[in-house]
């Protein structure tokens, strides 16, 4: 049995490995170029790119674009790696975050986009000069073109807060704990926050949506890691951990399984991205943004200046072009990407089709998006938060680092076996040892 499983793993690897990288895929013949673009494995994003490809091919009959979703076998990252290692035809793909990008860059798999003609013009057209700074790699090149940036915000059940006597959602840790105390007094079976992912050792990405979201707010965006050193604002990190510990100790944090806890009113607070809004609209139409649900920036320590907008984590993804494509294919796909992303109307279409906030610096100022945001107030708050959102750590060891954070920091903290300070020191020591 185990031998079969071992062989199954090896088979996956052999299928990936035996193709080798010696023979790059053929480019087009003559003026005809055929390119393959992999979209995120999300029907709305796939539909957007198919729509764009169809329009582009109408105007450019010499280019054939095949759009397909990234195969999740078993994850989209693994799907891309398998395709690259087997020499499968793949010219470009979206849905790449900087951590995975760093791994691809180290594997010499990506084209530096800033070396392609018209790159700077495209960035200027998108008013994204500042935004792309956070996407620059150690060698000074830009390998990923950010396409969307989802700021993480907090949602509050305003209807329950009002029942508890609060007319405004809380801002600081103390205010949140005060709400929690009143909630428990009035509704002993309810919780403030449901977060079972805090103790799930496999879900490394969930640290983006709890610790890093809170940490960037508390530290005003101080980098947690710089090169191989943990350069985090220790006071801010410890304050975040103390806050999580307080929630747990006071019985306000639910780490057990619960189905739609925020939506059903079992909890009154959640950290959510804009992808949650279509789900609410479909499954919980009674949740009205701005009425019984309101959004706020992440919570901050009590001494955080009032009136200052806290930073947050950005779940941001971008487009890459693969080096193993021929030069003709690389140029053709770059022309296609430029054609799509230099027109704000296409970004407006993206916003309408996917609900994800485009990575542009002029989201709230550009007329192309005005009407959409007027009609979708829920997404406007996410657009406002884009400039304050910090992208993920750019390290190829992203999985190991964030899994380690769960193991040495979060689980012991929730179990009560370490203090917040010890939890922070444990992750600091552990990360620096791993990156030596």
């Amino acid at each position: 049995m185990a031998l079969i499983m071992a062989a199954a793993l090896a088979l996956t690897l052999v299928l990936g490995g035996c193709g080798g990288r010696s023979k790059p895929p053929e480019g087009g013949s003559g003026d005809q170029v055929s390119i393959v673009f992999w979209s995120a494995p999300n029907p709305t994003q796939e539909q957007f790119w198919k729509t764009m490809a169809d329009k582009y091919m109408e105007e450019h009959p010499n280019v054939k674009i095949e759009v397909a979703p990234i195969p999740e076998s078993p994850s989209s990252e693994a799907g891309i790696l398998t395709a690259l290692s087997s020499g499968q035809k793949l010219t470009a793909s979206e849905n790449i975050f900087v951590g995975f990008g760093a791994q691809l860059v180290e594997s010499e798999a990506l084209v530096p986009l800033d070396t392609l003609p018209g790159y700077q013009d495209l960035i200027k057209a998108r008013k994204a000069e500042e935004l792309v700074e956070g996407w620059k790699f150690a060698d000074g090149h830009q390998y990923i073109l950010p396409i969307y940036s989802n700021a993480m915000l907090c949602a509050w059940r305003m209807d329950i807060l009002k029942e508890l006597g609060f007319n405004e959602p809380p801002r600081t840790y103390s205010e949140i704990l005060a709400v929690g105390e009143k909630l428990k007094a009035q509704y002993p079976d309810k919780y403030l926050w449901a977060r079972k992912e805090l103790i799930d050792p496999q879900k490394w990405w969930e640290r983006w949506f709890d610790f890093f979201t809170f940490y960037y707010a508390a530290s005003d965006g101080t980098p947690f890691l710089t090169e191989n050193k943990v350069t985090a604002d220790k006071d801010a990190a410890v304050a975040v951990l103390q806050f999580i510990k307080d929630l747990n100790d006071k019985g306000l944090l639910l780490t057990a399984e619960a189905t739609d806890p925020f939506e059903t009113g079992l909890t009154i607070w959640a950290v959510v991205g804009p992808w949650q809004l279509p789900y609410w609209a479909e499954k919980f139409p009674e949740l009205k943004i701005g009425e019984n649900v309101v959004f706020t920036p992440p919570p901050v320590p009590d001494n955080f200046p009032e009136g200052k907008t806290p930073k947050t984590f950005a779940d941001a993804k971008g487009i890459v072009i693969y080096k193993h494509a021929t030069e003709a294919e690389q140029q053709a796909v770059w022309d296609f990407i430029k054609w799509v992303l230099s027109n704000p109307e296409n970004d407006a279409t993206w916003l309408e089709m996917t609900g994800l906030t485009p990575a542009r610096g002029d989201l709230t100022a550009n007329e192309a998006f005005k009407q959409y945001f007027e009609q979708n107030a829920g997404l406007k708050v996410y657009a406002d938060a884009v400039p304050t959102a910090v992208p993920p750590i750019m390290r190829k060891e992203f999985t190991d680092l964030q899994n380690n954070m769960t193991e040495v920091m979060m689980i012991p903290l929730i179990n009560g076996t370490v203090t917040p300070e010890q939890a922070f020191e444990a992750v600091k020591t552990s990360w620096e040892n791993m990156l030596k």
Partner: protein
Amino acid sequence: MRKYYEVRGWLLTAPYIIYTLVFFVIPLFWAIALAGTDWNLVSPKRNFVGLDNFITAFQSPKVAAAFVNAFKFMVLFVPLTLAISLAIALLLNSLTVWGNIFTVAFFLPYLASGVAMALVTKGLIAVNSPANKLIVSLLGFQPPWLSHPWWATMVITALIAWKFSGYYALVFLAALRSIPREMYEAAALDGAGWWTQFRKITVPMLYPAFYTVIVLAVGLMFGIFTEPYVLTGGGPNLATHTWQLEIYSQAFASFKAGYASAVAILNALATFAGVAVVRWIITRWGRAYGYEE
């Protein structure tokens, strides 16, 4: 003529030989080769690291947890599944009507998707589910289903036992139906009651079925993946971490193909060793009934 038969024999077995080579032997040797590298599936750099991956695996608390947990699950799962599947088989064997319908019904969980079953379980034990609320009202407390190491282990064991009991019951049922009725009739004439007949006739005659089921169940314990992946992620505190979870997360989340191959090879060796020990024990048991290897 002999040569003709030889060629025909090779031709007829060729599909299986090719299948085994392509899907088993070549990948196995490839995995052994990979285990000596630090390759990430795509990088042009494939450094030979010797036995480093194996040394890292031996020092890994996760691999140690996977090793221990396989035996922990075995101790819980094997007796539980044997008892349930034998009970189902005895029940089905005693039915005079609708026996086949119930046989199929008990077999159905084996055909059901493990992911779907784990998701259903997740829904049932959610704190705000009606099923959980009913259990809480009966027990008087909220069981820490997946947040306590012991409870999480039991939930996963119970789910796997539920899935496989119907399948193993079929093996027992086939064996039960092959026991000659005359043996029971003769024993009854000698004054043997149900319990004596069960101990002195049924159990010894079912020994080959016990052997098959125990070896299958033990092997299964080294290959658990879906249930902990969906329900616990291997937690809490690595209490439900398994070999397959470790191989999966290293290969497809951390992209350490070399290290994952090393862990897969250790997993295969542990499985061989585990099954060999259990076979040795049950062979000794079989000798008491006169069975020889």
